[in-house]
Every structure is written in structure tokens, then in C-alpha cells.
């Protein structure tokens, strides 16, 4: 059976799973790719934001000065599209405060003073990802139980968007899901968190895959991995060797292959229309980290307390893949990795293509923080901006088939109508256009500014 899966792998031509448009920036994964997942020593203090996800922020249910256990719920989901928050480590809750997230959004937050001696005894990796996973236990659970466990555990998408996972998995009668994609592409340069997870905890991912498949009602599950990770492909194909209706798809290494709207057509040939969801074409996509979290929630009753954060870049002394508690501050992680080098210039939450530059090292790690990339001066480009040459490189590389230069010029000229007609709203801000632009026009910035202006412009019109 294993041999069969291997032949399938070798005959699977990655050129067939191609991306429409896209770019191939320097991968720079070598910095952290060979660093095993390393549980980070418990910091003395955590700042746990209550609005880490898309949707309504969770409501605090613990009083200040309350003692909490690791994994105890400290905030309850406010409605369906929301996610509960749990104490990542044992300790004492402080008085509610406000945290500035990496995205610049401000959120209510609970500080927790960590009980050092209690935290020291916890073998975090074994609790969260390690050890044996009993795949047979999946059969004992039904879809509703799985969904309830996922919701209870406060799981949100770990790829970055942080959308509550139980909402994604919930079957809808009118729009049945038949394909589940487990996304191990990790197309963002530098980041290796998903890669390390695939190497070190493939069983957790597979258990999560089976659970998610059952909950969503999908008949097929496909694990998608870019062809620049042969080791992960080998490990994962071995892990799924005896499972029916579970496949592995080797994809071309091209950014943004890991984006939902890019991965779905590459793997299934289905295209998601603008304004529709993957659900509308019968597909659900989960990140490999999310799948592992689903397994932890259902089979071990383990809520989201930690996540893997790749700390990398030429500006960091010792790149690493840290298993960090939610709410740890960026400075704690950076300090654990030997600190900044003198030529460090930008500290990003995420990777260089879609990451947010942070101005405050007290920014807490959230459920969606996949990495901290510290770029050194030598990695950045300081070419001066020129006028648009209308060369159309942005059109060539746009994975969504937009005309970025036209939208950007419309936003610049204040012509929101034209920007809207040119499908500004469809832009996923992947950054391919700005990456490829020889004139160094900050196209993504114009897209974001345009979306904000459009929302402001349309809000009063809707309320009338």
C-alpha cells in the first residue's frame, strides 16, 4: 500500500497543479527549515487578546485576580461567528486591558501572570501535538460531537485569516461539501511552521483530517503540499497510505499557491467566483496546523493554547520554530531567539509577502500568528518609485485576473466608482502585483486604502 502511494506520488506531475499568475520570490526557508519545533520557556506574563479571530470578540468570563488552569476557558464566544479563548498557561488573571494586534487592530485583552513553577512541569509539545494519535477513536465520534468539540476549543484558521473553524466545517444542506483540502503549501517565503508540523506530527494532522472530513461530510480529502518540500511530501504520503479517499496533491512552488482561491482551482479545477465562498463550490480548506488543533480538541479535549511560530529572517540571531503560548509578546520570542542583529530593519507578523510590520514589540502572539520575520537591510529593496510604465507585469502575475494598475490609479484619483467596477473588492492583497512592479508602486497599499474608502463611502448609503 505504501509502495502504491509512493508510485502515485512520483507519477503525480506537479506541473499539472499549476497556479494562475503568481510570482516566485526567494524562498529563504533554509533559515528555519531544519530547526525542530522548540517549546518556548513560559514567559512571566501573557497578554491574551479576546478578538483574535474574524467575527465578534469573545466575552471575558473570569474575574480579575482569578487563578486559572492551563486550557481553562477565560472568554466565551459571542455568537456563532466567534471563538472562545482559553488560558494558555496556568496563572493569575490581571485586570482587563487593551492590546494592539499585529494588524493594527485594537482588542480587549486579559493579562495573565504565569505561575512559573506550575508551567515548568508541562511538556507542551507532547500535550499539543506529540505522542500517539488513535485514529480509530475518530469512528466513535459523530459529526455533531466533533463540531461541538471544535467550537468549545476555540479553533480558528491557523493560516492567517483566523476564521472560526467550526463555522467552516458546519454542513449546510443547500451547499454540500464533497472535498476537504488540508493546506500544507506554506507558500509564504521564510515560514516553516507548517512544514515542521508535517514532519514532526503527521499523525495529528491525519487525525484532524479524518475528523474534519467526517464533520463536514466531505467524501474526499486532499493534502496539498508544494513541491519544494519533498521531505514533508514523503512523510505525509506515508501517513495517509492506508486511508481510503485521502489523497496527496503535489503543487507547483509558486506564491500564492496556499491561498484558498488559488489552491482550490489548482487541486480540484473548480473556481470560486468573486463574492462566493469555497463552500459554494463544495470545498472546505483547512491549514495543517488547524487540522492538528482539531485533532487535539476532539481526541484530547485540548483547546488552543499554543501555536507554532517561525521566528526567522536575517535580522534575528538564531532562527527557530517556537511552540509559543498564545499571548506571548513578540519581544519574548525574539529574546528567546538571541535578539535582533544590528542590521534588523523590519519586524513582521507573518512573512514578507503578506506580513504586517509591527511598531510595538509588546504585540501578543495570536492564534493566527504564523511567524515573526525580522528582515535585515540587505533583504529589503529601496528602489525609488517611478510613474507607472503600464508594462502590465501586475496583470500578468495577478492570481485573481485583476488589472491592479487600473484599480490603483482609480483609487489614487479618488474614482471609487471605477475602482469598484474594476473589482477592487475581489483583491486578496497577496502582494504579487507590488512584488513584480518595476516602478515600485505600492499597489497593495492603494488596494487597502481603496477598500477602506469604499466601505466608508458605502456605509451611509446602506443605512438610508
Amino acid at each position: 500500500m505504501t509502495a502504491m502511494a509512493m508510485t502515485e506520488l512520483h507519477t503525480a506531475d506537479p506541473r499539472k497543479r499549476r497556479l494562475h499568475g503568481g510570482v516566485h520570490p526567494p524562498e529563504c526557508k533554509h533559515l528555519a527549515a531544519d530547526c525542530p519545533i522548540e517549546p518556548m520557556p513560559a514567559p512571566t506574563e501573557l497578554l491574551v487578546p479576546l478578538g483574535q479571530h474574524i467575527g465578534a470578540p469573545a466575552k471575558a468570563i473570569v474575574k480579575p485576580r482569578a487563578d486559572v488552569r492551563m486550557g481553562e476557558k477565560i472568554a466565551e464566544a459571542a455568537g456563532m461567528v466567534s471563538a472562545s479563548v482559553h488560558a494558555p498557561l496556568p496563572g493569575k488573571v490581571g485586570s482587563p486591558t487593551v492590546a494592539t494586534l499585529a494588524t493594527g487592530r485594537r482588542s480587549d485583552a486579559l493579562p495573565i501572570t504565569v505561575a512559573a513553577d506550575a508551567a515548568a512541569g508541562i511538556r507542551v509539545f507532547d500535550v499539543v501535538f506529540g505522542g500517539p494519535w488513535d485514529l480509530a477513536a475518530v469512528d466513535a465520534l459523530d459529526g455533531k460531537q466533533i463540531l461541538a468539540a471544535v467550537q468549545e476549543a476555540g479553533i480558528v484558521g491557523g493560516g492567517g485569516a483566523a476564521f472560526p473553524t467550526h463555522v467552516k466545517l458546519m454542513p449546510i444542506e443547500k451547499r454540500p461539501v464533497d472535498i476537504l483540502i488540508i493546506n500544507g503549501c506554506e507558500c509564504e517565503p521564510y515560514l516553516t511552521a507548517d512544514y515542521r508540523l508535517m514532519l514532526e506530527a503527521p499523525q495529528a494532522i491525519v487525525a484532524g483530517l479524518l475528523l474534519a472530513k467526517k464533520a463536514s461530510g466531505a467524501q474526499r480529502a486532499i493534502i496539498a503540499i508544494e513541491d519544494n518540500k519533498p521531505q514533508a511530501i514523503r512523510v505525509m504520503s506515508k501517513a495517509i497510505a492506508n486511508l481510503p479517499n485521502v489523497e496527496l496533491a503535489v503543487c507547483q512552488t509558486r506564491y500564492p499557491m496556499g491561498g484558498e482561491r488559488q489552491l482550490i482551482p489548482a487541486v480540484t479545477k473548480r473556481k470560486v467566483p468573486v463574492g462566493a465562498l469555497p463552500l459554494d463550490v463544495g470545498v472546505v480548506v483547512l491549514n495543517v496546523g488547524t487540522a492538528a488543533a482539531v485533532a487535539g480538541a476532539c481526541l484530547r479535549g485540548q483547546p488552543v493554547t499554543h501555536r507554532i511560530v517561525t521566528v526567522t529572517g536575517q535580522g534575528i540571531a538564531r532562527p527557530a520554530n517556537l511552540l509559543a503560548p498564545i499571548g506571548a509578546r513578540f519581544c519574548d520570542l525574539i529574546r528567546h531567539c538571541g535578539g535582533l542583529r544590528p542590521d534588523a530593519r523590519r519586524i513582521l507578523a507573518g512573512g514578507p509577502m503578506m506580513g504586517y510590520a509591527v511598531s510595538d514589540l509588546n504585540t501578543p502572539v495570536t492564534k493566527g500568528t504564523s511567524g515573526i520575520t525580522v528582515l535585515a537591510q540587505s533583504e529589503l529593496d529601496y528602489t525609488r518609485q517611478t510613474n507607472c510604465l503600464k508594462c502590465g507585469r501586475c496583470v500578468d502575475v495577478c492570481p485573481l485576473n485583476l488589472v491592479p494598475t487600473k484599480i490603483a490609479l482609480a483609487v489614487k484619483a479618488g474614482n471609487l466608482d471605477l475602482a469598484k467596477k474594476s473589482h477592487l473588492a475581489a483583491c486578496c492583497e497577496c502582494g504579487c502585483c507590488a512584488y513584480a512592479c518595476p516602478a515600485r508602486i505600492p499597489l497593495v497599499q492603494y488596494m487597502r486604502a481603496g477598500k477602506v474608502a469604499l466601505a466608508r463611502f458605502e456605509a451611509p448609503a446602506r443605512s438610508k
Partner: protein
Amino acid sequence: MSRSAALTAHDPAGQAVLPPLELATSPHFADRKQTSRRMMVDVLLALGPAIAVSAFVFRWAAAWQIGTALAFSLATEALFCVVRKKPLSLWDGSAVVTAVILAMSLPPSLPLYATAIGSVVAIGLGKMVFGGLGCNLFNPAMVGRAFLMACFSQAMVTWQVPAVPGVSHIHAVTQATPLGIAKLGVRDRAKAEAAGQLDQYALRQAFLAAKKQVFLDLLLGIRGGSLGETSALALLLGGLYLLARRTAAWQIPVGMLGAMAVISVIARLFRPDLVMYPHMQIVAGGAMLGAFFIATDPVSSPVTIRGRWVFGMGVGTFTMVIRLLGNYPEGVMYSVLLMNALTPGINRLTMPRPLGGIRNE
């Protein structure tokens, strides 16, 4: 102090040094292989082989033409920048590219003062009055050339004998270009004799007799014509480099040369007496220079992929229409200018649909 001290590197004196951090929006990466100036440098590099052949064939005339065009183009750009109190934009390289392409499209024997006027018009009226780099509607070099065509129409179609020692092919003797000969309308000896055009008839016959040699000469560049219309091979070499670098969109030259080949094949079906064969059409005159270096000017060509096909095929079609039916022997310049004018409309009509279409549409 304690927090930042542990965070940062230490200088030899043992003091914490916090590196100056920046904020910016994503993406934080840019493709370093491609910048606006690099695109201009690419065009100049790609023109290298053609310039070399030109210098070999036309000797000092080539240097004088290019030098004059460069001097007056840069001076005009500088003047506009100073008058409009804008930063000096000479270093972006676009004026150099315009100057060289203009010079390459001129006959080597053109008086230098005409070249100077053409350069001033190309940069001034072609580019700077629109607002500079990236803002012009028309290809600046072709605007300059069109102006010269109107003012110095005789000098613009007088072709110098290539100064290649030991070569005396038919066009070298007669100074007529292949496309010029193709325009001669005398096919019948008796009629030619009656009209007193026996010399033209003889020229045509000589051309037909030596057609293989003519094609070879067109490829290698031993022919009369503009500076840059010499060797089709040299132009092709540079053109392929531009396509490989993605500085020029490949759809435009493929569309243009493809349309020209198809139309000349069809034309020969209806008029078998045409002396220009399809493979000659695409290497003769300004077709190669136009397809790879002029029509591909990013600023004045469409940004959409379908638009580039339409644009390229449009230039090729109009070029063939002018060659076959018009009064001029060559039509690349007017075709490019015509399609430049249509570019905003082409962009509008060829807007791609977003991937997957729009929901409920």
C-alpha cells in the same frame, strides 16, 4: 532598559544598540531583477547587436545620428524639467531609449539638424507635454519620426548605399530598398516600354532573379534602409532577450509578425505577381525593429493580455495594408501610432474577468 537590553545586539562598548526599525505595508519584498531603469537598460542592451551591425554598415553616419539624437533628447528633457521645476529625470533612462530608437528609425543620410529637430519633438511633444515618463499616449520616438516624415519627406526616404566593401548586390547599386522595389507597378515589359519605365521593369526582374540573395542580405543587414533596419538577425537576437527578460510582452511581436505573415500569404493567393514573399515581408523594412522595440513600448501599448494580442495584430495588419495598398513603401510607424491612439479603448474593451467570474452574474 532591561527589556530592550536583552533584545538587541551589543556594540563593543557593551551598550545596547536598538537598530532603527521601519514600518511599511506588505509586500516587504520586491522583484530586484526588474526596475523601471532596468527595463530601459534592457532595451539598450537588446539594441546592442543592431547598433553594432549599423555601425559596421554605415560607419560614422550611425555614430553621428545616434549621438545627435541623444544630445538633443537629453537636453530637451532637462529643459522641460527645469522649466516645470521638477526633479531632473534623465537618470530613469527613458530619454536615452527614445533617442536611440528614434535614431535607429532614421536614414543614415538624414541631415543632422533634422535629427536634432526630430529629437526635440519626440521628447517635447511626444513625452514631456503629457507629464513625462509613463504619461504619454503615443510612442515618443514615432512622434518625432512622424514629424520628420512631414517636414523632410524627401530626405526621409533617401537611402544611403551601404559602405560594405566588396558587396555590390542589386540594391547596393540602385539604392532602392526591397520594399521600394515591391512598390514598382510594372510587371509587363510591353506596358513598361510604352510608359517609358523600362528601367523599373529591369529592376524588378533583377530583384526576382536575386531573391534568395535579397533575403540573406535582409537577414544579415547588408541593405539600404534606416539605421536600425539593417540586420533582422541582430534585431531578433536583441528582441528575444527582451522577451526572455519580460521587459517586452511577447504577445505583441508574435501577434504583429504573425498577422503580417498571414496577410502576406493571403495577399499572394490573390496577387501571385507580388515580389515580396511572406518570409521577406517580416524581415524587410522596419518590421523587426517595430515588432520588438517600437510596438512593445510598454507605456503606449495595452496592459491587458488580450489587449496586447489585439494591439500586436493591429500593428501587423495596418503595416501590411500600407505596404500593399498605400503610397508609402513602409508603414510600421503609422501603424504603431494608429494603434497607440486605440490603446485606451483596447484596454477598456479587453478588461479580463476576475478568476471564477462574478457570483450571480
